[in-house]
Each structure stands twice: as C-alpha cells, then as structure tokens.
C-alpha cells in the first residue's frame, strides 16, 4: 500500500480506529524499507540511515497545533479565534478549509521531512481567514498565514487551494531555515520553495505521482469567468492563464528570459518560474512520488545550513546537486536528474561552495 494512503488512514483514527492502528504499524515497519528501495545505493553515512527511520516515528507522536482566527472582513490581525486544534468544524468554509489545509501541510512536513510544524518544534500553526474586504490575496506576515476572500469576479477565496495554504506555510519554514531574502533571485527562490512544498502538499494529499500531478499552484482560486487553470504552472511556466482581463501568465521558464524589474520585490513571483520548472523536470525524470526524491533533495538543501540569505539561482542549484549526491550518491540517477534539470532551464550548477 502506498505510504501516502497509509498516512491518511493512520491520521483518520477517530473514524477508523482499527485500520488507523494497522496503517501506523505498517508505516513504522515499511518506512526504512521504502527508504532503501528508493535509494540507488546504501546511504553514504550511517546517520542517514537513522534519519531515514525518523519520519515515521515522529509521525507517530506529533499532532499539529492549529489556531484559526476570523478577521471578519477587517484588515486587522489576528482577528477572533474561531477554531482550535481538535475542535469540530465551524461551518465556515474558509475557516474549515484553512484548518484542513494546515493539517495536510503539517502531515507532509512531519511524515516525509521529519519536521514538526513551522519551527520544527511543534509550534502553533496560526491562520487568519476573511481578511479585508474582497481582499485578493493570501500572505505570510512572519507569524501567521492570512487569507482574503477574493473579489468574487477574478478570485474566489484563497483557502480553496491546498497548494496556496501549503505555499504560505512554507514561507514560514523558509523564514526559520535558509532565510532567503525576499528580493531579486533569493526572493524568487523563496517563492520557488513555497511553490515546491505547496505542490507537494497537494500531491501527497491526493496520492499523485510526478507524472499524474498537475504541477499547478492555486488551482481553484480563479472564478469560472477567468480563462485560466491556476496562478502558476511549475512544469510549463507562462501557461497558467491567458485571459482578457488578467492578460497572459508572465512567468519565464528559462534563465535567458529572467525579468529585471522593480515590481514585486524584483519580480519574485515572476522569476520563480525558472527554478519551478527545474524542480518539476527533475521530479518527472525520476518518476514516482516527487516528495520521496526531488522533495527530499530540495528540503535537504533548504535546511543544510549552507545557504546564505542572498544566494541566487546558481548557488541554490549547486546545493541541490550536492544534496542529491549526499543522499543518493555522487553519480546517482537522482544527482544526474537534478543537474540535468537545472541545465535545461539555463542554469549550469557550479561547484558547491566549500
């Protein structure tokens, strides 16, 4: 049985206590085996083997600590607390979507990446919904995820999309790890990381492999009036929408088309298309579940402690190749796939920094 399905059954214990218990046991038993099957060769370091076992053990014990607040259409934070961890659904769609989305995101980080919440120490996951009046956005303010309801003409509510919820939470993870400065190339990488984990949350929750995945970010946030599929397309940047009102998706898919601009903190939501495509290409080349290889490599690079806040595309590319070599071996197919994916988007990974 695929691990994502086991995870989902394991997490569903109130309804299916017996199945959930069985699934948890299976996860514990199979976790290390899955690791070994996926690795092209035995892990280079003994501690890697230990690392590989940890996620399922961690997943046994950790629960998210979610707190959802309602801003009631005002632009003030945090708003009124409407749902705490373990409380029943409120009946408010946005509040319950945020609660569920944070649960899915927590599950991916805990079970796959051995990370308990944003801070890695089980800290609260806080979100505010119904922020502002027809507010067309969702953001991370350094403490919480904030979601607007959309204007109803172009945008529906931003909690509609699991990849958007995952995207926002991942901003918190980046802030606690590589601290990529939100400007220019490092800012586009910050955005890229959020798109990667936003997409992976959705794929993990739906049990999609890299070939079946849509690679869309924000599917479901546009109204039916918009000619578009999503906010972004990681695999084919620049093709997510083409609409009379919105214009055409402006994301570049190759480094030669990098956009120099003063808008948007230096085009952080535009140029993220370049690394996004590299990730999707690597994941599809490797096949299977993206969180089991490309996702781990990217998470390793993000949390290695080797990235500096102002690092750009080339340094990051080198760090992902290095992370792939560390985890899977120097000439592993994983390392080769990551290297080739960067080259395909016009980034030649340099030697990693000493």
């Amino acid at each position: 049985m695929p691990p994502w399905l086991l995870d989902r059954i394991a997490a569903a214990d109130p309804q299916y206590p017996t199945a959930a218990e069985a699934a948890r046991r299976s996860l514990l038993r199979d976790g290390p085996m899955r690791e070994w099957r996926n690795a092209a060769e035995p892990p280079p370091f003994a501690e890697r083997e230990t690392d590989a076992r940890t996620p399922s053990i961690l997943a046994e014990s950790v629960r998210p600590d979610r707190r959802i607040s309602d801003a009631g259409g005002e632009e003030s934070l945090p708003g009124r607390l409407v749902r705490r961890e373990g409380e029943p659904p409120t009946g408010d769609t946005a509040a319950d979507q945020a609660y569920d989305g944070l649960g899915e995101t927590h599950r991916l980080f805990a079970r796959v990446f051995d990370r308990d919440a944003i801070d890695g120490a089980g800290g609260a996951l806080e979100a505010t919904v119904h922020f502002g009046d027809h507010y067309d956005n969702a953001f991370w303010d350094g403490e919480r995820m904030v979601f607007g309801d959309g204007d109803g003409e172009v945008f529906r509510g931003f909690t509609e999309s699991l990849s958007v919820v995952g995207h926002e939470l991942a901003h918190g993870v980046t802030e606690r790890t590589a601290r990529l400065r939100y400007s220019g190339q490092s800012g586009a990488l910050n955005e890229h990381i959020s798109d990667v984990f936003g997409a992976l949350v959705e794929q993990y929750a739906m049990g999609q492999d890299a070939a079946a995945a849509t690679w869309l970010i924000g599917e479901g946030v546009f109204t039916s009036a918009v000619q578009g599929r999503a906010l972004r397309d990681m695999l084919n940047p620049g093709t997510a929408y083409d609409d009379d009102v919105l214009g055409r998706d402006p994301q570049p898919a190759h480094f030669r088309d990098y956009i120099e601009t003063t808008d948007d903190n230096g085009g952080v939501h535009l140029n993220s298309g370049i690394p996004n495509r590299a990730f999707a290409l690597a994941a599809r080349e490797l096949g299977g579940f993206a969180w089991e290889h490309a996702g781990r490599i990217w998470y390793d690079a993000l949390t290695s402690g080797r990235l500096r806040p102002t690092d750009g595309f080339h340094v990051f590319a080198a760090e992902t190749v290095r992370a792939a070599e560390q985890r899977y071996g120097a000439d592993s197919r994983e390392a080769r796939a990551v290297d080739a994916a960067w080259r395909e988007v016009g980034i030649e990974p340099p030697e990693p920094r000493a």
Partner: protein
Amino acid sequence: MDVIVSRSGGIAGLRLTWRVDVDTQPDPDRWYVLIGEIPWEEAPAAPPEPDRYTYRIRCEPHEGAAHEDAGHEGDDHEPTSPKPHDDAAAEAREATLAERQLTGPWRELFDRVREAAEPQRGGRAER
C-alpha cells in the same frame, strides 16, 4: 498632475495600476494639500512580507507645469506665499511602500485614488 499607484506582488504576482489626473477632479486643491503633506522622503522602511503587496506611488506633473512654477518662484516681488498646490504641482515625487506601511496620509491618498479611478491590470513589469 497625475497620481499613479501601481500595486505589485501578492501571491498571484499580478499588477494593478490606478491613474488619476488631479486637475480634473472636483477638488484638486484638497489633493494638492494631501500630496504636500505626505513625507515623500521618509517612506518608512520595513522588511518585505512574503506575498504581501508592494505599492509604488508616483506624482507626475503635466508637461509645462514645472516650468510655470519655476517662473513663479523667481518672482521676488510676489508678496503672498504660493498656494500649497503650487509647491506640490512642481515636482515629480515617488515612493515605494510595503502594504503594512500604507497608513496615515499614504493610505488616505491611496483610498482617494482608488475611489477616483478604475484600475488597469497587467502590462509589462516595470524596470
């Protein structure tokens, strides 16, 4: 004088631009007073918040406006101080603010702009 507000960023990375010709508004003097009150050189600094909007606010004098005003300033015999809007009309001004910083007179100006004009979407990213 045109006031142009360009909002970029946001999780969607979509740009909206509002443009208001202050001189065709019913109360141009109030606009000029407000523009004169804004501390353009002291836009507060704040670290960007991921996915939050960035506002670029510009005042563009119309062709010839700066010239007229320069002549005005050079008139030593003019006994009365210039009206506030003469000052405000003279120079191009620009500031970039994070959404959290859009408060006080900045917010008031943006709210007025939003009331007076429909936004235009998209267009090429500004260099």
